[in-house]
Every structure is written in structure tokens, then in C-alpha cells.
């Protein structure tokens, strides 16, 4: 028996897969890139010019829980949240390689079932009303996450990737398949999609190698492949990430994306002493998250202003 420790800090929630995603999963279609009998680790051509990598991520912070009193009705719970999404472009090809945040957006929302509940926290921070339909306690948090996801989609569209670029989205690709050159980057594995021989190919992956592309078919269809990032330890799944691309794309395009991702993402992998989510949490993502968090503002100041403010409406 072998027990390998995942490099992941267990305290981090997983934004990757949900078990429910795999409902109704039939066997994966392995013969997309190479026949299933020929499955083996693939290494991309390192001599090709490195494409630009656009990485999209978002951060959120729950600033305050509020109770909203509407006359004649029982108090309604609400949630004040700040969230931001941004795109960082890593251009390793140019003579002066650089990573820069090209676009970002910050929003603040008061999530509740009341349509016009708004709060202002100081001159530059206003929590806009976000109506949530569900009544369960977890629904408010889910609504924040939903809103953040749509913000991520918005900034990813703003970034306008070029033909050769690689647009890396955090987590599964669901509902973001329409973005150009987009791949979903799934950092942890709730379930194994491969069994038997193909699964051993994943075990045999060396850093910088990927499995052949295969097609997942459930209630949805997506092309997917595994890559191994450096620093995760050999043989375990600790350094393995899964990537997804839209099933509507031509197979050649998907293979191009898979090669680009296997070429570029291992270079951007983080090291364990700097990031508890190493190596899957990519270095630019960590930098982007820090910059976005800085844009969210000081939580204590916001909370103080929220306490002293009055509803706008």
C-alpha cells in the first residue's frame, strides 16, 4: 500500500470538480488523439515559440452578514461580499519576458432576497443589491460564487486572446466553453476518469508530459487530458492537473491547446515553500490573487463603514 501526501493544504476549498458533475458518466472515449491501445505519455515540442498564456482568476471575501428589516416582514439575512476578477498575461516569448495584469474588475454586492437593499461603505465602496432567490443559508454564498464566476467570464472576454494564446480558466469549463482558446484548469481530483491501462499512463507521466486527449461524455461532453507539473512528487497524483476544452472545437485545435498547456503550465507551476497549493496553483495565479485581494480594500475599514452607514434605498 502506498499513501502519498497531496501537496494541497486541506483547508482550501476545491473550486474544481463536483461529484455531481460526473453524474451519468459513461466510459470516456479514448481514441480521440491516438488509439487507446497506443496510449503513452506525450511530450510537446519544446522548440516551438512559447505562446502567451492568459490566466483568469477571481477572489472573493465575505465582508459582513446583515439582517434586513423590511417593515411588516420578518428580518431577512443578507451577505455583503467584495469580489474581484482579473486576467494576467504571461508573455515568455518576448525579449523581455513579463507578466502583467491586463484587466481587472472589482464589485461589491449585498446578496439577499430583497431586491433593493443597498449599502454604502464610505465614498468609494457601495454594495449593490443582488437578489438571491433561494432561502437556504448556503444559497447566499453560492450566489456570491456565481456572481464571481460571471465576473471572471466578463474579464476573460475583455482580455481578447489571440489565435496562438492559451486562456486558462480556473476550475471546470462549465458554462464558459464559448470563450476563445479557453481551457479549464482543474487542480484536484474528486474522481478518476481513467481506469486500468490508461490510468497507469497518468502514473507514468513525467513533469511536462501529458496524456493523450480523450473525450468525457455525461450529460455534457468535453475534451480533457492530464498533465504533470514539476514538484508534485513522482508517481502520485499530487502534481497532476486535468485540463478541459470545449467539445465543439475541432480535434486539431484541442490537440494544439493540449500541447500549449503541457508546454507552458509546468513552467508556471509554483513551488511548495511559497504556496500551500503548490504545484497546481500557478505562480501567476498566486500573484494575481494577491493583487486582486489588494483591490478588495481593507476589510476592517469596510466593516466599520458598513456599521455606520444607512441603507441607500
Amino acid at each position, binding site marked *: 500500500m502506498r499513501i502519498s501526501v497531496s501537496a494541497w493544504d486541506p483547508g482550501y476549498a476545491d473550486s474544481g470538480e463536483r461529484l455531481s458533475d460526473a453524474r451519468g458518466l459513461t466510459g470516456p472515449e479514448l481514441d480521440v488523439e491516438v488509439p487507446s491501445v497506443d496510449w503513452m505519455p506525450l511530450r510537446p515540442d519544446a522548440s516551438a515559440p512559447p505562446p502567451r498564456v492568459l490566466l483568469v482568476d477571481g477572489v472573493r471575501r465575505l465582508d459582513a452578514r446583515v439582517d434586513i428589516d423590511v417593515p411588516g416582514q420578518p428580518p431577512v439575512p443578507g451577505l455583503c461580499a467584495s469580489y474581484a476578477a482579473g486576467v494576467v498575461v*504571461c508573455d*515568455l516569448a518576448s525579449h523581455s519576458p*513579463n*507578466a502583467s495584469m491586463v484587466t481587472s474588475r472589482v464589485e461589491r454586492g449585498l446578496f439577499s432576497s430583497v431586491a433593493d437593499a443597498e449599502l454604502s461603505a464610505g465614498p468609494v465602496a457601495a454594495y449593490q443589491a443582488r437578489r438571491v432567490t433561494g432561502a437556504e443559508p448556503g444559497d447566499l454564498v453560492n450566489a456570491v460564487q456565481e456572481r464571481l464566476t460571471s465576473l471572471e467570464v466578463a474579464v476573460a472576454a475583455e482580455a481578447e486572446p489571440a489565435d496562438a494564446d492559451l486562456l486558462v480558466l480556473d476550475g471546470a469549463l462549465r458554462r464558459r466553453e464559448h470563450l476563445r482558446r479557453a481551457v479549464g484548469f482543474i487542480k484536484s481530483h474528486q474522481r478518476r476518469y481513467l481506469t486500468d491501462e490508461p490510468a497507469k499512463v497518468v502514473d507514468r507521466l513525467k513533469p511536462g508530459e501529458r496524456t493523450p486527449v480523450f473525450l468525457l461524455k455525461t450529460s455534457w461532453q468535453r475534451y480533457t487530458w492530464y498533465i504533470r507539473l514539476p514538484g508534485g512528487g513522482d508517481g502520485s497524483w499530487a502534481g497532476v492537473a486535468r485540463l478541459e476544452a470545449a467539445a465543439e472545437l475541432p480535434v486539431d485545435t484541442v490537440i494544439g491547446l493540449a500541447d500549449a498547456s503541457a508546454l507552458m503550465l509546468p513552467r508556471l507551476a509554483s513551488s511548495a515553500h511559497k504556496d500551500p497549493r503548490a504545484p497546481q496553483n500557478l505562480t*501567476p495565479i*498566486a*500573484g*494575481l490573487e*494577491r493583487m486582486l485581494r489588494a483591490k478588495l480594500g481593507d476589510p476592517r475599514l469596510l466593516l466599520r463603514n458598513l456599521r455606520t452607514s444607512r441603507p441607500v434605498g
Partner: protein
Amino acid sequence: MMVRMAEAEDVVGRVLGTEDATPLTFWVAIAPDSYLQLDDVVVTRREVAGREPVTVSGVVTAVRSRHEGAQFDSDVFAISEGHLPAQVQEAAEITVTRVDPEVFVPPRPGDAVMRASGAARDSALYFDQMTRQIPLGFSRDGEPVFLNADFLDGTRGAHVSISGISGVATKTSFATWLLYSLLHSQAIGPEAVNTKALIFNVKGEDLLLLDHDNTRLDDTLRDSYARLGLPAKAFGSVTVMAPPRQGDRNGVPDVACRSTGVESFYWTVAQFCSERLLPFVFADADDERQQYTMVVHQVAAKLHREAQPKDDGGAVIDGQLVSSYGALVDLLCDRLSDDTTRGTWAGTAVGLGTINAFIRRLISSTRDIGRLVRGDLPPRRAHGVGTDHDAQVTVVDLHNLPDRAQRFVVGVTLRGEFERKEKAGTARPLQFVVLDELNKYAPRDGTSPIKEILLDIAERGRSLGVILIGAQQTASEVERRIAANSAIRVVGRLDPAEANRPEYGFLATGQRQRALMAKPGTMFVAQPELPVPLVVNFPFPAWATRPAEAGAAPASALRSVTQTVDPFALAGDDEDDIPF
């Protein structure tokens, strides 16, 4: 906020809010397409409720840049390889020089900071308040820097203290440059013509060519002099005095680099006796711990009483003709060793041991002082050191003299000048004294006749019109009262251990570090009006500083040495009348 930024002329950044801003110092985040370097002058304005806006001006005393968004030192590799997004941010520390009106409020984070130029710069550095400006040189950004003449000529302050290590600090060059600038600018008006300067040259023959044009003077240099409002030329009126050559019977000046326009200086035996110069032979003559100092003063008084001057500068003492210093020493030894005369020469109740201590020191001085105290040279030959002649600048060459002789010359000369000014009773015209190695003449510990005179100059010189431009390697070893009386303090390159001493407290922290690597020609000048010393690059001298640079000798220097004897002087002699 955008409107305010647009109306400003040259916005270089904004006051940052991650460091405290105070009315005395604050930090500025520099805009991406701008820069600030050390010594740049900036200005910012802020609104004060119920008052007029306050203008805060200052000088950049530190600059830094850093990666924002980096957590680990190694992140710099990830950032420069394009893996990690981060921002390079530069920031500058501003030390406030002026708050106008004087409402001491801090600038507020976010306030736009402008590079000061023209009137704003003059105001920030108080140049607008200096009615009489002496050009000091250029600041790092190439703009002229001035000194307030009020603090040099005694109006509101006097004396200059220049510190720095030997060789690279260019202390003497700066002292002569300051004199040149003072004499050639319009700062002290027509008075400049009558102003005198006495320069002691202690190292090499650097200062003996002040009246020779510098052959390395080119148009660039002329242009920089012109931008400071000064002509680029040598000192116009210079007398060089050097001690007589050792063992030379004719008293030829001991100078290698020039043969004309140099006179030798010495004192006659008669002068030595009548002017009581004996204490200056002993460096520690006023030290109360020494017993023999009593004898020194007794003997000096006796010589003053006894000596009868003779024509050739010698003197008859106690019935014996003395025509050289050696003979004088012999005479004194003889009188003091003899039991019958000892009492009248050394005073009563002086122990034999004390007498012997005096004799021992006196004999050892023969070699050093012998060539300076003469009784064998032609009478009426000009020989004294002083500024009471025509030349504006008098250079006294000491570099060939041993230490004891240097002290003797400096002590006797300074006393003479100080007494002359005291008798004149008026501070004008001014008398400047440039003296290097002040730590030798006025050390922090102990007393000596020279130190007393220098202290007198430092404390009373301002009202008497005697201005001391003192230079030393280590200000910490100079008498505190002299340093404290200097209105203008100048620092060149400093020794690292020296730079941390409290004597340099006027330098900002960053400036102390910079002083360790200051290049020749760069000085930190502190003047009373400005809270921050200014960094000044003074131009290369327009006069020669070594024989290789010297152009043609000026006409005034072409006189031969012997011509300095006035051929008609004999005619005015009453004793020896015209023989026909």
C-alpha cells in the same frame, strides 16, 4: 483629483500613504514615467481648512524602488521571467526645507508632488531670501546653488569649517574656490577689492600658482563659470611667500614650482625679541601642566627688555651681538646654565630640572626655527608675513617646513594679523584666513598659543572682520568652540568611522552614507538658513593647481626676487645720511 493633476506643471508623483508623512519629512511614490534623483527639489501644496493653501518644499534625501506583489526574495526571478505579475514602484524620501506660510501641517497622501524649478526652486532653497548670493557650484540636476553672503562676511555669521579625508575631499580647492567666488561675484560689492586673504599652503605646492591661468580651462568650463556669473580666470593679485632655503645664506625662497613672484619670509632676531615670539617656538607653551612654560615667559620678557636692534636684523643682548637663532639659543643656554645669571633670566625659585627641560626643548628647536629667525640678511628687505601690502591674496608656503616651524609661522602670523585688525578698529575690509589641518593647530585637548589665537578668531573674529576658513580631516578632533562658531559647514568625502561622529549631525542619514563615496569636487554644504545640507559640485579651478597646468606667469609675478628691495629706501634713513 484629475483636475488638480492637470493644472500642475511637472507632476512627478504623489505623497504616499503607506509611510507616515510629517511636516519635516515624507515619502513620494513616483509616477511610472517620471523619476526623482537624490538632491532634486520638489514642491507640493495642500489645503488647510480655514487658511490659505500651504506650500511644502523639500529636497530628495533618499530614493528606493521595490517590487510590489513579491513576497519572497526569489520572486524577482519569477517576475523577470514573466511568471509572476508584479509592479516596480519607486519612492523618494523628501526632507522638508520650507513650509510657506509657516503652518506645520503634513502633506496628505495623494497630494501631487511637482519638480520645483525657477522661482519654486529658489523659494524651496531660500535663494529668494538671499539678497547677496555667493555661487557655490551646481546641484546634481545642474542648477546653480548659492550661499548667503550674510553668513560668510560676518553680517549674521562667519567662519567656514571644511572636513574630509585627505586627497579626495578637495578641501583646499573648495576653500580657494569659495574665496574666488566671494571676490569675483557681486555679493559683497566694491568691498571685494579691498578684501584680503591669507592662505597657508601646507601640502605640496598646490596653492602657489593661484595667479597662473589653468591650461586645462576649456569652453565647457568657461560656460559653467559664466552660468554662475563668474569670470573664469586666475586670481588677479597674489603674493607668494616661502621660507628661506635651509642653509642658504641669501635667504632664497624654498620653492620649486615658481621662480618669480615669490618672496621669502623670515623674522629678524630683533623682531623675535621685541615681539616676544619665543612662546610660539613651544607648541605647548601655555599648558598649565608644564613647569617650564614659566621659564618661557620669563625669558621672553627678558629678551624683550634687553635686546637692542642692530642694522642687519641682529640684536645686542646682554652685551653680546646675536645674529642668528643658533647664537641666540647659545646665549640663552649660557645665561641659564650660569648660576650667577640664572636668577635674572629665569626668575627666582625655578628648579634646575625645569631650567633643563626648557634648555632641552630650546636646543632641539634650533634646527627647525633656525632658518626662519635671521640676523644675517640685508636690512630693510621685505620679509614679514602679513596682508598689509598690496596683494589681495597672500599665500604662505609651509609645506617644506617641519611641524614645529609650521606652528611657529602660523602662530606668529595669525597673531600679527589679529592684532593688526584689532588696532584697525573696523571690521571692514574683511580678512580671510585659510588654514588646513586645523586639528593640528587647534586640537580638542590641550592648549597652545596658536589655539588661543584661533579661538579668539572664532569667537571675536566675526566682529573684527577676521573670517576663518578652516579645513581638517576630522572635525571631531578640532576644538568644539571653533567648530561651533562656524556658520557654514562643509563636508567632502569622509572616513566611515568619522562620518558617524556627532560633529556631522547636520548631515541627513543618507548624506552621511553618501559622504563616504563623495567624488572629488562634490561637497555637502550646510548653511544656517537651510535645514538640509546642499550637495554641490563646484567647477574645476580656473587657476593652476599644479605646475603641469600652469599657463604663462602673470606680469606681476615676473619681477625678479631682488627687485622687491626698494632702491630708494636708503634715502629715507635718518641715521645714515646721504654721504654728500
